[in-house]
């Protein structure tokens, strides 16, 4: 009789989609990083007026939001891998993973407040 190993609630997600997502989000973040660097170098530094104008631009707000989503998705996979490698008790691992998700959700919420909140 063939017995399959039990799937763990907080084990690996048995697929390559996280692996792929980590790489796609990495490329998105790399492009955004080079954009920020390019803008800073092109203008010979960043002063308040330029910075304010940049973040008043709708397209830049959206690009920044997409960067932040990519960052949080990327960080979720990476941090989850760390918990999976070093934390063996299932309960503790689940708790840490849950805290990670909450932190990332808070980061995204904070980003929305910064980008579209009243100032």
């Amino acid at each position, binding site marked *: 009789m063939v017995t399959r190993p039990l799937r763990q609630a907080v084990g690996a997600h048995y697929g390559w989609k996280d692996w792929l997502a980590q*790489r796609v989000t*990495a*490329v998105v973040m*790399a492009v955004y*990083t080079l954009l920020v660097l390019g803008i800073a170098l092109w203008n010979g530094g960043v002063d*308040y007026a330029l*910075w*304010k104008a940049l*973040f008043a631009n709708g397209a830049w707000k959206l690009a920044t939001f997409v960067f932040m989503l990519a*960052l949080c998705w990327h*960080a979720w996979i*990476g*941090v989850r891998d*760390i918990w999976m490698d070093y934390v063996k008790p299932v309960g503790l691992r689940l708790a840490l993973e849950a805290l990670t998700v909450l*932190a990332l959700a808070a*980061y995204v919420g*904070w*980003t929305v*407040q*910064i980008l579209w909140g009243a*100032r």
Partner: protein
Amino acid sequence: MSALDRPVVRPRPVYLNLIGIRLPLPGIVSFLHRVSGAVLFLLGIPLLLLAVQCSLGSAEQFASLRSALAHPLGKLVTIGFVWAYLHHFCAGIRFLLLDLHVADDLAPARRSSAAVLAVSLALTLVVGVRLW
């Protein structure tokens, strides 16, 4: 069943002496990639958001953030995060290339891991020199 047919059973689990193993350079780069990633997640993202929020608040807040970052302690923290970001960035590009089977033989992979360490440290040095 003759002795020849019997599968070789190795004693398991195998315990590795982690302290006795010398981690090769690609292993060090990989571990630092993980460490820098963890630091960026735990401290880097909230500090970045705090800085962006502050910088967009008003011209005075923008200036006070500038002066906080100009403080020696602010500079040290900045350099630390710049290294973490640069190392994570460079090591990440290396992993992407390895995934595409670029330079994934043993010798080139060792050379590229040395390059990642060198480039991220050199760029951090450039930023550090400009800051001081």
